[in-house]
């Protein structure tokens, strides 16, 4: 009989439970959940503000999930320390929770760089948790001017979410373009123009040097008046517990393909980890919901004694604003790095597919994203380009570009 403990109650924790239960239906599982909510999906908070979902519908699994899986959830408790020699997790109040197998699914936390006068800003919010969104919602008024610091995925989804509920939205970022982690200049400009059409203003290549009351003084000298401030600069993996316990961490908790950490009987999954990205052949933080799910499941199975591996992690994003969708995946290698880029670009859409060494390594689509998963699978499965009619495939993601044999396998059998 094992005694499973999971720190965190996000998507990785849920799939960890599912992974464990796919092997071991008996042993008790305890979840230490810092937030007081059943598992919900954090990316949904902007959709909540937009009115596309409700708090009830945001629940990741049906109500009976924990009960059906014999899981004890301890809401509102925070793990304070891991003692790997005695196999114990200590809570803040000193209580000891013993484990035989531990999974750390502690997620990430917003990172706000020091900004002068920030502490004096009254209506300032983060945008990561449901509570963040609920608090922000309380503050929204039709005449409010909103300043969002950070033009990444979180900041922009926040902008879309509150659009129509406030008077104006300005987004600033130190980077010269929006969504700088996933977009190049051309794509960023296209998406920025689209957002601007919907009334969102941008101050790029610029940052707040000081908050003076309800005014942000920018490095460029510009002054932005605001009523509500949302700090969405970025997130950092929660690695503290593992680091303190002597586990191997870089920017995230280092895990192997089995999602095991460097410490015995301790696994980790989700946004707090640094896992293998097959497009670069090295570890990096892949803070993405699908990866969290798959890592969690893999960790769970290994914890329960079934050998499982998750070695198909790739960066990918599906993101849309006001009806314009974009999808990105993998890594874009430059010509110097040996990469080749195929490009289509017109008024309606942009398509870039990156290949290297006869493999697709990444793509970037704006507008027409239909059947993009076929490309994603090419990257994930490391499908050699020689096995497909790539000239046709790069234009249209279709199985017509695959061999008849491959189509026979897929459409004539069980996958």
């Amino acid at each position: 009989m094992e005694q499973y403990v999971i720190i965190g109650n996000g998507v990785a924790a849920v799939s960890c439970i599912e992974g464990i239960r796919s092997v071991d239906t008996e042993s008790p599982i305890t979840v230490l959940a810092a937030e007081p909510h059943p598992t919900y999906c954090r990316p949904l908070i902007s959709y909540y503000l937009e009115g596309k979902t409700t708090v009830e519908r945001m629940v990741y699994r049906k109500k009976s999930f924990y009960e059906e899986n014999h899981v004890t959830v301890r809401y509102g408790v925070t793990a304070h320390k891991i003692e790997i020699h005695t196999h114990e997790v200590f809570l803040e109040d000193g209580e000891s929770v013993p484990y035989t197998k531990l999974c750390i699914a502690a997620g990430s936390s917003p990172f706000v760089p020091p900004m002068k006068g920030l502490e004096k800003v009254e209506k300032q919010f983060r945008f990561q948790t449901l509570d963040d969104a609920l608090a922000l919602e309380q503050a929204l008024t039709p005449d409010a001017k909103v300043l969002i610091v950070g033009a990444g995925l979180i900041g922009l989804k926040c902008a879309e979410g509150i659009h129509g509920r406030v008077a104006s939205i300005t987004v600033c970022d130190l980077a010269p373009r929006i969504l700088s982690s996933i977009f190049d200049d051309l794509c960023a400009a296209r998406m920025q123009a689209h957002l601007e059409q919907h009334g969102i203003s941008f101050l790029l290549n610029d940052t707040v040097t000081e908050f003076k009351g309800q005014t942000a003084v920018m490095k460029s000298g510009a002054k932005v008046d605001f009523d509500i401030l949302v700090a969405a600069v970025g997130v950092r993996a929660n690695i503290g517990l593992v680091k303190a316990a002597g586990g191997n961490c870089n920017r995230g908790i280092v895990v192997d393909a089995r999602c095991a950490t460097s410490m015995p009987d301790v696994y980790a999954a989700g946004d707090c980890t640094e896992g293998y990205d097959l497009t670069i052949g090295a570890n990096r933080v892949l803070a993405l919901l699908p990866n969290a799910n798959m890592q969690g499941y893999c960790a769970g199975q290994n914890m329960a004694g079934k050998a499982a591996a998750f070695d198909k992690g790739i960066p990918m994003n599906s993101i849309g604003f006001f009806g314009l969708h974009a999808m990105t995946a993998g890594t874009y290698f430059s010509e110097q790095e040996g990469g080749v880029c195929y490009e289509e670009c017109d008024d309606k859409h942009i398509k870039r597919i990156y290949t290297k060494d006869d493999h697709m390594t990444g793509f970037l689509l704006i507008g027409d994203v239909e059947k993009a998963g076929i490309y994603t699978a090419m990257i994930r499965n490391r499908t050699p380009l020689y096995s497909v009619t790539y000239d046709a495939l790069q234009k249209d993601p279709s199985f017509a570009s695959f061999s008849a044999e491959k189509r026979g396998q897929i459409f004539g059998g069980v996958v």
Partner: protein
Amino acid sequence: MQVSKMKRVYVNEQWCLGCHLCEYNCAFANSGKPDMAVALKGKIIYPRIRVEQDGQITYAVNCRHCTDPICVKSCIAGAISKDADGVVRIDQEKCVGCMTCVLVCPYGAVAPNENGVMQKCELCLQNSCGEPACVKGCPNRAIVYEERG
């Protein structure tokens, strides 16, 4: 839920004529209307099965109801599930239209409906057709509904 034993829709490209009737039969079956002309006249259709064609090659693609579906794992809303009967279903109430499923489905079998909510083949189990409409209406028995593997 790992279910592989189940009846699925299979398309045999040797017999697929590329007539697109499966698409119209699908759109009609899921329209809830009593007559195809009433249901589809003057409308852009959003079928859950799509014919792909390249010269003489024609076949139709719909959800494979994968044994280990990546869409289920990737859905940011927890709206996609693989149920005990093996059928992968989308809870359209929970779907927020983020299209992550489109990004990950290796078969290109998920697409939005006219309202931007995701949909895919659910084997006509929930509509009035009772059996997959694409199978029933295929003029050359290129599409079959059976258990394999």
